[in-house]
């Protein structure tokens, strides 16, 4: 199963039976609105706190994924989840509601593919038959925890990114119909000294480059093997940097299409999102909503999703530390 330096190639590729995607109003105004299962008209979801609203997003995404897979909650053997909040409370509290054996992980915005990779590994290794991978983020919980109060008047620079409000969940199973997870490459923590928390794209780009190159080298696949290579949330600043770095290192990216979920989820020119989207839900809802639907229609056959995460804390950047970053890549084939 292990191939090369840090890639798992699954001999019996696990199936993504079904997915659930739930988003907030800004994502509902974006170009991918029609691909999401549920679009909320407001950020509150009639909950008394932002944190409860985020938790509900995750629970709804999980419910939708499970019911679309024509399963019941009890059929899910494990839930692998994570989010951006301190002590990953969104996932943990959602796991309390689900009542499923639970593994909590933290990979910042790379959590989407980290949980999918782990769920696939569990299924492929025989540790479980049906495993749920899910993650969430909420614009206001993230602003509150990492930046300023949501209503505080401060100007964000054009390099800043807008956290996606939403949640994405996928049911991974050993058998059934659906796209298959054929390989996963685990990222290293890469830090090239960027300290500006309002420029995560530039901080994360080298991590995406490192993981994508490792994946291609480990599997012996050229970029052209994939119809699409998509990064998690590098957005308007990080995505061109990653592309330039890959080309410099001799990766023939012209063989494939190279995109970024943070640029796909919003209409960056029209919506006030600065450089584009970010957050755990960014790559989760774009992959589980938009990309898998395009695979279902036959427009895409093989994709590589490299979800990127900035592993900083509010404490670490106030203490002047640079931003360590990671990317996990998952190969999904129709």
């Amino acid at each position, binding site marked *: 199963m292990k191939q090369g330096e840090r890639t798992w190639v699954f001999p019996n590729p696990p199936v993504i039976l079904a997915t659930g995607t739930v988003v907030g109003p800004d994502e509902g105004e974006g170009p991918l609105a029609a691909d999401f299962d549920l679009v909320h008209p407001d950020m509150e979801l009639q909950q008394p706190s932002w944190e409860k609203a985020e938790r509900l997003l995750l629970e709804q995404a999980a419910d939708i994924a499970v019911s679309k897979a024509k399963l019941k909650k009890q059929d899910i053997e494990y839930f692998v989840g994570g989010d951006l909040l301190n002590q990953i409370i969104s996932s943990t509290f959602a796991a309390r509601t689900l009542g499923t054996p639970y593994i909590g992980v933290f990979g910042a915005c790379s959590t989407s593919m980290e949980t999918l990779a782990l769920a696939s590994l569990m299924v492929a290794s025989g540790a479980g038959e049906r495993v749920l991978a899910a993650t969430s983020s909420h614009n206001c919980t993230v602003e509150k925890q990492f930046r300023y109060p949501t209503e505080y008047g401060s100007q964000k620079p054009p390099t800043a990114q807008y956290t996606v409000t939403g949640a994405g969940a996928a049911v991974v199973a050993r058998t059934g119909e659906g796209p298959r997870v054929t390989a996963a490459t685990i990222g290293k923590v890469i830090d090239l000294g960027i300290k500006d928390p309002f420029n995560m794209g530039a901080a994360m780009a080298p991590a995406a480059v490192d993981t994508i190159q490792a994946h291609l080298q480990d599997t012996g696949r050229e970029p052209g093997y994939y119809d699409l290579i998509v990064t998690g949330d590098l957005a308007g*600043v990080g995505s061109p*940097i990653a592309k330039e770095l890959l080309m410099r290192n001799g990766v023939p990216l012209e063989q*494939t299409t190279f995109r970024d979920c943070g640029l796909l989820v919003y209409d960056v020119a029209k919506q006030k999102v600065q450089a584009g989207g970010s957050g755990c839900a960014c790559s989760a809802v774009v992959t589980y909503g938009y990309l898998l639907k395009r695979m279902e229609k036959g427009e895409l056959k093989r994709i590589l999703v490299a979800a990127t995460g900035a592993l900083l804390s509010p404490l670490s950047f106030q203490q002047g530390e640079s931003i360590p970053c990671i990317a996990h890549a998952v190969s999904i084939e129709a």
Partner: protein
Amino acid sequence: MATKEAGKSISYKPMSMSAKEYKQFAKNREPARSVLKNCLRAFLVGGVICLIGQGVQSFFQAAFNMSPTRAGNPTVAIMILLSVILTSIGVYDKIAQWAGAGTAVPVTGFANSMCSAAIEHRSEGLVLGVGTNMFKLAGSVIVFGVVAAFFIGIAHWLFGGVGR
């Protein structure tokens, strides 16, 4: 699109940039920030806020026959109220994104920093939430304001009553 068969041995150049080189590389690729545009907007919005304040003050002077000094206190109260209302209905932060430093003018900006923190942390209760966090952003202004006043007070005492 060419589909290449898997299984070949591939190797690419590893990342060779040092942190210093990468910082410069990334800096060169940041979108330009229009300082002139930001300055103009800040001037415009900051000026408008001050103009409104002046209008309110003139109103108190004319309507209640107050001296400019006495009209100052109710004017500040009205400006705080306006800022708190705009913050509460979720407008102040949108103006700030457009105006930049223009909305940071002392009275309304200060009120916004306290009000936004109070709203944000209401979910953690009145004492530990609102009470503890209300000065989260404004606190440093008060601390350094008091420290600065202390040193200026000493300087004033030492070097005599300029402007007394």
